[in-house]
């Protein structure tokens, strides 16, 4: 998907003025609350009208003030998943799901109810009223309703921010599976860096109605290192769990990670960059259950600290240490190093 946006919109004292071109199927729009993310997607979806400018999706103009083009929202084929499910309360789950499908041109109906129901695991809910669903079920139906309208693009406007952490990471696989299975490109809007790193490959950083930069999610995470109270978080997608003395063992690069708790066979874990202790030589003994033999692949500034990128076989970790430690350990690119991590330092997501 290619999105070309060059438009302005004034809303009371807020002024949105953006000019960017972005390509890709998993695009993130990141920024703090009130920076204009929702206004931007409203302009793209046709829910708001720009004062001037043009918006093109895959070369086709959906708005152009010079050529007097303004395709109404209902004809843009842009599905939306909102912060809250916003299901139609007077309709059943099935009627909600089919609302967009029935209004889609027959030759564009590539996704069917059956395929979608299987992916979202909502077969048992079809004949129920939407007021009898849990928060997670409602959001799955909302995703299904948008996907089943067979859109050429999906906009997810902070679809996870109203959910608690546990539910959030249960919904993410459904979002990913739906978009991957039906090859729907999406714009994912969020102020959460973690969500952005999980959902987006290219990220548009928005600040105060302007585009502050276009980068990968990883570059964004590193650019924000040290700028907030939260340290850089390593997101690890780990597989093949087995039990060993009350710990779960997962494959990681050319080694294994020991994580406390009854882990699932596959899962997403977060590990704070400040929870990794570096040793220049192999320590004789340590209380940490994980001692990884790594290579330093990158050293970069993280405000008043230093970020150390470590390679363990095919996987990477980022540790953050103070400058004095870098000097003490004489860390340089390419050197071999040991990283100690406690088994309790990993936090399962979802």
């Amino acid at each position, binding site marked *: 998907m290619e999105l070309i946006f060059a438009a302005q919109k004034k809303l009371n004292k807020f002024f949105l003025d953006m000019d960017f071109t972005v390509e890709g199927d998993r695009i993130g729009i990141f920024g703090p609350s009130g920076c204009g993310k929702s206004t931007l997607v409203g302009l793209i*979806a*046709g*829910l708001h009208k720009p004062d001037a400018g043009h918006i093109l999706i895959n070369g086709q103009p959906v708005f152009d003030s010079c050529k007097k083009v303004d395709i*109404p*929202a*209902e*004809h*843009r*084929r*842009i*599905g*939306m998943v*909102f912060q*809250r*499910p*916003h*299901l*139609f*309360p*007077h309709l059943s789950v099935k009627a909600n799901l089919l*609302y*967009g499908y029935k*209004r*889609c041109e027959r030759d564009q109906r590539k996704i069917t109810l059956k395929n979608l129901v299987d992916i979202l695991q909502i077969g048992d809910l079809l004949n129920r009223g939407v007021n009898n669903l849990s928060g997670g079920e409602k959001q799955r139906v909302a995703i299904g*309703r*948008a996907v089943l*309208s067979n859109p050429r693009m999906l906009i997810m406007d902070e679809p996870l921010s109203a959910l608690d952490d546990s539910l959030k990471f249960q919904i993410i696989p459904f979002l990913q599976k739906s978009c991957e299975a039906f090859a729907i490109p999406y714009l994912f809007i969020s102020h959460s860096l973690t969500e952005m790193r999980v959902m987006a490959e290219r990220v548009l950083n928005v600040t105060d109605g302007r585009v502050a930069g276009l980068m990968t999610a990883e570059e964004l995470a590193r650019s924000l290192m040290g700028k907030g109270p939260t340290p850089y978080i390593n997101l690890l997608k780990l597989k093949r769990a087995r039990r060993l003395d009350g710990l779960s063992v997962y494959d990681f690069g050319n080694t294994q990670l020991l994580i406390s708790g009854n882990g699932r066979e596959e899962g997403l874990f977060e590990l704070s960059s400040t929870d990794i202790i570096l040793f220049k030589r192999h320590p004789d003994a340590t209380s940490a259950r994980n001692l990884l033999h790594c290579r330093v692949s990158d050293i970069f500034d993280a405000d008043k600290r230093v970020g150390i990128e470590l390679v363990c076989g095919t996987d990477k970790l980022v540790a953050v240490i103070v400058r004095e430690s870098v000097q003490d350990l004489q860390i340089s690119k390419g050197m071999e190093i040991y990283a100690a991590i406690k088994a309790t330092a990993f936090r399962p997501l979802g």
Partner: protein
Amino acid sequence: MDVLVNLPLTLPPVVVGYLLLLLLGQNGPVGKWVLQPLGIQLIFTWKAAVIATAVVGFPLMVRSIRTGMEAIDEKLIQASRTLGAGWLDTIVTVIVPLSVRGIMAGSILMFARGLGEFGATIIVAGNIPGVTQTIPLAIYEYVSSPKGDVIAMSLCLVSIMLSVIVLIFHEWLSRRVVRVD
């Protein structure tokens, strides 16, 4: 527009009736240029009583429907549009079904107001027994005539019962008008 819609609520009903008479009467703009060429006679018929009652009760209905519609989350309308529904489609499939309680509550309120309508009706429809005589007009006539007290009292009781039933139903419906989603 707001002022125009709500005007019958604050004006004395007699004034509303008189204005309707001026408008719909034989020399009024609507009466002379629209009704007469079509051969329609409104004044002093039951149709005039219906129009007078409708005009006086209309603001109550509009206010109730408006409250119902304003309670609809705007995001539901946005969702409907991004799912391919045009404005008319959205009104028919989302806005009206979600306002149905407001519409019903407004209709009941308008009906209740209509039951008590006197001033506007007597001006445009007169008080013709069996043709344009409503309960309030009949009570007025029986109270004015000797030995009409018993019938007037009976009609008062019927009127009170109808009003109580209608208001209880309205109250029940109003409590069910909750903000959706």
